[in-house]
C-alpha cells in the first residue's frame, strides 16, 4: 500500500507535487514578506501592529550560494538513508520577493553542478519516512536549460 504523504511541518508549504509554493506572510499594502508565516518578523516602516496576510511565495529564483553537509546533521534532522548520503543545500533569492530561502537541493545535484546566479525552482520531495507516511518538504531543483529558454 502506498504511504501517505504528509508535510514534515504543517502550514509552511503547499503540497501540490508539480507546483509547490512556500507559504509566507505579507504585510498588507506593502511588499514586505516573511517566511515562515508563523515566525514572521516586523517591518519598522509600519507603525503599530502590522496586518499580516498569508500568501504563497513565488517559486523561482537564483542561487545566492550553496554547500553540503557531509556529516549527518544532529536531531531533529532525521537521517533517511543508511549509510548517510551527504545533502546539498542551496540559498536561493526569489525573483519576486527578493528574499533568500534555504532548502536542500533534490538528489542528484552536488556542488559541482551549481553556481551563484543559477536559476532554480521549488520542488516537493521526501524528507524522511516511516512505516505509514512520507514526510514531505520543499527542496530546490535546477531548472533545465530548455525550461529556462521557455520562460
Amino acid at each position, binding site marked *: 500500500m502506498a504511504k501517505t504523504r504528509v508535510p514534515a511541518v504543517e502550514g509552511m508549504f503547499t503540497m501540490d507535487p508539480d507546483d509547490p509554493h512556500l507559504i509566507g506572510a505579507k504585510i498588507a499594502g506593502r*511588499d*514586505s*514578506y516573511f517566511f515562515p508565516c508563523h515566525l514572521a518578523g516586523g517591518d519598522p516602516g509600519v507603525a503599530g501592529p502590522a496586518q499580516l496576510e498569508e500568501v504563497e511565495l513565488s517559486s523561482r529564483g537564483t542561487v545566492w550560494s550553496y554547500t553540503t553537509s557531509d556529516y549527518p546533521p544532529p536531531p531533529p534532522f532525521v537521517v533517511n538513508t543508511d549509510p548517510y548520503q551527504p545533502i546539498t*543545500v542551496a540559498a536561493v533569492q526569489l525573483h519576486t520577493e527578493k528574499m533568500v530561502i534555504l532548502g536542500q537541493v533534490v538528489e542528484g545535484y552536488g556542488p559541482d553542478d551549481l553556481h551563484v546566479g543559477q536559476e532554480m525552482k521549488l520542488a516537493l520531495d521526501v524528507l524522511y519516512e516511516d512505516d505509514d507516511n512520507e514526510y514531505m518538504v520543499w527542496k530546490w531543483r535546477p531548472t533545465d536549460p530548455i525550461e529556462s529558454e521557455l520562460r
Partner: protein
Amino acid sequence: MDEIAILGVGMHPWGKWGRNFVEYGTHAAHEALADAGVDWNDVGFVSGAITVRCGYPGYVSGSTFARALGFNGSQVSSSYAACASGATALQVARGQILSGACDVAIVVGADTTPKGFLAPNAGDRPDDMDWLRFHLVGATNPVYFGLHARRRMDLYGATTDDFAMVKVKNSRHSVHNERARFTKEYGLDDVRNSPVVSNPLRLLDICATSDGGAAIVVSSMDYAKAHGHSDPVRVAGISTVTPTYPDTMIDLPYLATDSGAGTPEPEVGFKESIGHSAYAEAGLGPDDVDVAEVYDLSSALELDWYEQLGFCASGDAEKLLRDGVTTIGGRLPVNPSGGLGAFGEAVPAQALAQVCELTWQLRGEAGARQVEGARVGVTANQGLFGHGSSVVVRR
C-alpha cells in the same frame, strides 16, 4: 562616548577539560583581579555572560560567579547574546560605570561545551527557528559557514587554499599562546587532507568549540588614575547593534532573509554595521587599527571580516592575506591569539577573550606573538539571531 579603563584581564586556558564552567570563570576572575590590583570587595558590579549549555547556574552566570568569588553585596546582571554575550556583558558594565552607579566592575564569561555539532533544544518545537532549520533542511552551523565560503569562491575567485592559509597563519600565531587550545603549527596539507564538513570547508577550516573562561576588570577613568593606572588600555567603543531592515544576507538560524522587494536595502549591511558603530563611538576608523581579533567561525569568514571592518574593499581580502598583511609582522595582524580556529571557541567567553588579547597586545605583554607598537585594536564577532559585537580599544 566616554571611555572606561581596562584595569585587569584574566583567562582560564581554552581546551577540552570537561570540568564545571564555574571553575573556569572563577579562575579567570581571580587572575583579572590580581592583574588589576583590585580587591574583590571593591567591585561594585558583576556582569556575567550566560552559557545556555550548563543548566540554571549558566543562565544566572553573574550570580554564579559572584557566589563562587564570595557574595560581596555587589549589584549583578547576566547577559545572553549568543557569540556576542561577552561584549554585551561588557557593555552593561560600561553603562553602570558611566552612569556613576559603580566605580569598578568585573565581567566574566565561561563555558563547558559538548563534542560535535551544536544542536537545538530537544522536543518537537516547530515554533523555534533554530529547531526548524535542523529538522527541515539539516542546516547545521557549518552549512551557513559553507554558504558564505562558496560565495567568496564564485564571486571573488577565492580558492580553498586561501581558506586553508587562514588556518595556517592563525596556527602560527597560536603556537606562541600558552592559553590556546591548539599550539600545533598546521601546514596547508593538514587542512587539505582533513575531511570536508560543508563544501568547500574542511574540518580544519572550522572553529572548535571548547571549554574556557575569560574575565575583565573595568573602571571609570577617574578610579583608574586614583589607583595608579596612569595609562591604562581603554574601551573606546562597543557595538552590539541589531541588523537594519531589510537584512537580505542569510544567516544563522534563519530559513529566509528579509525581503528587499519593497524597502531599499540599507547602505551599510549588518556585518559592516557592527564595526561601523564601534568605530563611530571611538571616533576612529579602519586606518587607525593596528591589530584585530575577528570571529573566524570558519577560515573563510575571517576573510569576510577584513572587508566588513573596512581593512580592504570587497573581494580584496585574499590579497591582504596572501601579501602577509594580516600575519604578525605585517601591517595589520589579524587574530594574533590564533582566533577561533586555533585558539578555540568558548561562546560566552569569546568576545571577552578577544578583548583580553588586545589588552595584552596594547600593553606590549604578548610575548612572542606581540604586534609591535600596537596602539589601537578592534574586535568583531557575530552569532545567531542577529547578534554581533565589536569593541574598539586604545592606549
